[in-house]
């Protein structure tokens, strides 16, 4: 019984420590990324590409208008996020911040056009551009 109490205590202590260690950053920018840009980007990333197995190739491209509409939604959010990111208190007049943000408007527009044209190849290309834009900005501004 004594052993069980000790182990339980240590387990609880371990869990609490880990919870504290792994607790999410809820800064303003983290939340914009986590709740706005990441889900929008995933609408684009998840709607293009393919999976190859020994059985063959599976395309991830949308197959109906409803699925394309999801991409359109994501693309629009990416486009409009430029203005959210460029809010003066966020951009603080930093020229590269503004440049990275404006890049998202261009990429979102390309994704929007690809979705409107139902062009999965173009969407695939835009998805890579989107990631490169994310990495470029994160390399400067994301806490390591």
């Amino acid at each position, binding site marked *: 019984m004594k052993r069980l109490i000790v182990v339980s205590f240590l387990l609880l202590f371990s869990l609490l420590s880990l919870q504290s260690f792994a607790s999410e950053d809820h800064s303003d920018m983290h939340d914009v990324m986590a709740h706005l840009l990441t889900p929008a*980007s995933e609408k684009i990333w998840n709607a293009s590409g393919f999976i190859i197995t020994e059985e063959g190739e599976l395309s991830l491209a949308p197959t109906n208008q409803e699925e394309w509409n999801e991409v359109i939604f994501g693309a629009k959010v990416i486009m409009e996020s430029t203005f959210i990111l460029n809010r003066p208190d966020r951009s603080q007049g930093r020229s590269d911040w503004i440049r990275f943000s404006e890049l998202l408007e261009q990429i979102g527009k390309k994704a929007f056009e690809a979705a409107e044209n139902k062009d999965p190849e173009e969407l*695939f290309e835009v998805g*890579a551009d989107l990631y490169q834009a994310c*990495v470029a900005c994160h390399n400067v501004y994301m806490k390591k």
Partner: protein
Amino acid sequence: MTNFMIKTIFSTFMILLSVNSFSHHAFTAEFDANAPVNLTGKVLKVEWINPHAWVHMEVEEEGKKTTWMVEGGTPNTLIRNGITKQSIKPGTVIVVRGYQSKGKLCLPRCIANGRDVTFPDGRKVFMGSSGTGAPRDGADPRERR
């Protein structure tokens, strides 16, 4: 008893670490620069998806088969580097150098970040992404410039 407690706490810690989702991340958020891996095995599946391609491979060590899921760069980056649908088909035996995920329980599969891949003809190609915070280990040709 001490061993039992240590094992219990360590297991709990590792389980909780391993359930962290793999999203779009910096290298250091998900992978362990101190856990290099060198994997030889047969390609099972390749996911050509953004923002990272994933190569699933079966690695056999001491008679035990383990499935590894290896993260690469964007599909476009891989294609530019010469890794194509034809060169990395299922069944191809490849060697991947990279770093294991921070969670090492391998449930349901092991996860690693791939730095370079060597094909059966001896060709070695960078398969990662530049600028993600991965160790400067010489795999990325851009780092040498």
